[in-house]
């Protein structure tokens, strides 16, 4: 057989966890092969082993038929393996070109001088060759996530990768970008590159891949040809039970207005206007979704509503009361729950225990504390209850949040925010990086919240999610609201046009 990658009997043990258990996994030349599995199944671990970041506890790897020991990424790169990581590996203050050439820099005078011109040239060359347009001279911190991902792919191609691993590449992309990525990947595959794609999104699996390998709790369940299977079957293999992929949601009359945003203006971190007069309202008993391409003011909007950023003009009203100038703590107390888009930066304190994370924001209130004294017995009981209720996979509530997988970290946050029973729940990318089982769970919770007469503001880049959950959909573009559609009138096409700034 013409396998470019064969991983045989790979086992990887972390203290307390068997992340990969006797895994066999192979990839053919020129195929797009999806590695599918729920959170914490061991996908990233397996790929990190292939890329030389982890040493396997046992097992063998063959690349193009040759047995190799991949001790470090250098060897992986040498063997033609490139990897785009789940969390991007880009140096933020560096330019695109600098990031791409890093480690294999073109130079003059025998390495004594960086050849910047050559670097830019090279980047332009490969970017043309593969149809991945980037501006080599801008800094990473100034470009969108989608663009950053292109840089990551270019990084691998620049190093001559013919086996490309992408770890959840679509989690942060807009529908258009996902579509573009699909085209790019197919082109690359047609040029003979082999692609390993990690994802939880069944729709993408079906659309993009040639074959699928399903992994569950560290073990390989099966490898299938995409055309011989279905989303439902994959979902079931992945979580080990039947999954309901359609959100159940009956119609409901919205109540009075809970959140009102009026002509809001705000600046971003660099002092550039990010919100340019945005107005909308979210009513009790409805899910109002804010769709839009990343970087159009969503982050700033949420920060202003939750008191993390100051507005320069305009008002935010919660149940009729002006909360524009209130501090975050007051806003939380008034009943605003917030699932932040960046869980590592905002949502969790990684070196605190899960129990301590479960009370962040409520730590100063009874029963968790009284007169400034914490009650750790209650805090631990509380955490145990939520872990049980939200199915957080962890040995105990006393481990640090750091040691949880991405999906389970998200569950901790959701548990905390929902448990507070907020009148307004702001959910920003609440299912980013989650597996179908977990997504089903989160979606159910959001709908439940709405059904209980609470207001939900959903901010998502995933049109599927938006359309499945929302009662009304607003589209944000360049700091302004392009328009608001009801769930009935919204179609993927209409929304896509609005997200690009066009009127529907």
């Amino acid at each position: 057989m013409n396998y470019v990658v064969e991983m045989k009997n790979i086992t990887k043990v972390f203290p307390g966890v068997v992340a990969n258990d006797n895994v066999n996994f192979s990839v053919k030349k020129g195929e797009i092969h999806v590695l599918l599995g729920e959170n914490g199944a061991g996908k990233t671990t397996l790929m990190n082993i292939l890329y030389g970041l982890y040493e396997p506890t046992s097992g063998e790897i063959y690349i193009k038929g040759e047995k190799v020991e991949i001790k470090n990424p250098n060897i992986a790169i040498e063997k033609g393996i490139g990897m785009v990581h789940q969390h991007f590996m880009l140096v933020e203050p560096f330019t695109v070109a600098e990031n791409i050439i890093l480690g294999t820099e073109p130079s003059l005078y025998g390495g004594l001088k960086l050849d910047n011109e050559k670097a830019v040239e090279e980047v332009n060359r490969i970017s043309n060759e593969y149809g991945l347009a980037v501006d080599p001279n801008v800094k990473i911190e100034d470009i969108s996530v989608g663009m950053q991902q292109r840089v990551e792919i270019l990084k691998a191609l620049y190093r001559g990768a013919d086996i490309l691993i992408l770890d959840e590449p679509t989690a942060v992309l807009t529908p258009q970008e996902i579509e573009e990525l699909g085209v790019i990947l197919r082109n690359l595959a047609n040029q003979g590159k082999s692609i390993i794609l990690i994802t939880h999104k069944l729709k993408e699996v079906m659309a993009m891949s040639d074959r699928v390998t399903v992994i569950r709790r560290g073990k390989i369940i099966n490898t299938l040809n995409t055309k011989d299977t279905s989303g439902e079957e994959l979902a079931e293999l992945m979580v080990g039970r039947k999954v309901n992929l359609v959100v159940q949601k009956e119609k409901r009359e919205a109540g009075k207005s809970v959140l009102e945003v009026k002509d809001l203006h705000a600046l971003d971190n660099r002092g550039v206007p990010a919100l340019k007069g945005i107005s909308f309202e979210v009513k009790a008993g409805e899910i109002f979704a804010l769709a839009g391409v990343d970087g159009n003011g969503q982050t700033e909007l949420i920060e202003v509503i939750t008191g993390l950023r100051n507005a320069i003009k305009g008002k935010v009203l919660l149940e009729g009361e002006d909360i524009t100038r209130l501090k975050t703590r007051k806003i939380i107390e008034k009943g605003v729950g917030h699932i932040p888009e960046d869980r590592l930066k905002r949502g969790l304190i990684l070196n605190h225990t899960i129990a301590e994370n479960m009370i962040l924001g409520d730590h100063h209130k009874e029963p968790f504390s009284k007169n400034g004294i914490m009650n750790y017995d209650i805090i631990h009981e509380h955490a145990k209850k939520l872990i049980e209720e939200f199915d957080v996979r962890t040995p105990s509530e006393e481990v640090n949040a750091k040691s949880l997988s991405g999906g389970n970290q998200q569950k901790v946050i959701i548990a905390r925010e929902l448990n507070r029973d907020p009148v307004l729940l702001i959910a920003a990318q609440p299912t980013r990086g989650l597996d179908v089982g977990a997504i089903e769970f989160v979606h159910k919770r959001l709908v439940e919240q709405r059904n209980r007469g609470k207001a939900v503001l959903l901010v998502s880049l995933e049109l599927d999610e938006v359309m499945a959950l929302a009662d009304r959909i607003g589209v944000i573009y360049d700091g302004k609201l392009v328009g608001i559609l009801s769930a009935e009138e919204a179609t993927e096409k209409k929304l896509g046009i609005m997200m690009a700034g066009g009127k529907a």
Partner: protein
Amino acid sequence: MERDSKLKTFVENIKFPLLAILLSFLIGALFIIWTGNNPLVAYGALLSGSLGGLDRFGQTLLKTTPLIFTGLAVSFAFRCGLFNIGAEGQYVIGALTTVAAGYIFNSIFGDLPRFIFIPLVMLAGALGGALWAAIAGFLKSKLGVHEVITTIMLNYTSIHVSNFFVRTALNPSTLEGTTQKAYTVLLPESARLTQLKEIIPWFGYSSVHTGIFIAIICAIIAYFILFKTTLGYEIRSVGQNSHAAEYGGISVSKNLVLAMIISGMFAGLAGATQVAGLNYKVDMAPISPGYGFTGIAVALVGKNHPLGVLASALLFGILSNGARRMQIEGIPKEVVGIIQGIIIIFIAGERIIKFVSEIRERRNRKCNVEGVN
């Protein structure tokens, strides 16, 4: 069951520090031999000089007292993500305000009863340190000025500020009309801390004073604040991830300033107890006594845990008081400095020990594999 595992982690926790101390003494022995001395004699002197009898132990506690305070100061700030190199300066200012308060209260109210006067001057010292630290905390939280620089700069500044007041406003020549002195007026008798030997005669000639109790109480308070109160929760949250803390409705700027103030209070109390328990005055000095810097080491060896600080301060107290006896035996006092350095290195690099055992393990494993093949 739970108790059992707690005991286990406790043993785990102190195993490496103990090994580190042992190893450092072994290496220190080489240096002692190098100077032509007998390490057994030297270490005998070190131990008997610091632990041989209650009076010597009293002198050890005397050395330990300020180190507990500065160790607490450094570790408390650390918990909020602040590196307080400035315990040194806060100590100096705390000592100064203690003397000043002693004079001022005495001249306003006359002879105050001890149970009022002592808390008053302690408070003054704590406030002095707090104020000095607050400058750094405030600049950090409002203007983003790196606290390492401000505290270094404030250390130097504090010495000159102190010298200025010693030379002028607080000098006996100004206040009592004597000739110019190189130190301040003395702290009134009733503001002075009781010597332990007055309560327990066995402490003999030692000068240890009730400041040691204040220090221990402060360690317990620090522990309580950090791990049992919402304030501590907030401070630790800001220290670990200020973005998440902010998201959880915790004011980053408020907690940065608060942590710095509390840290400064501990350092200020070091100065206050040193003045009220031992010196009764502040000298004009070109440099400060270095408790702030040793406090960094104390905090780090104590793993930034208030109770760990108690233990590590005692260790440093034993070493530096024992050094006295070693000096009398004619062994260069530098050896003790070397041992202290090596202890910290080993504790910092507790993985050195793990590393060595790992290498051994790996070698064993290799042998086994080869054996099988």
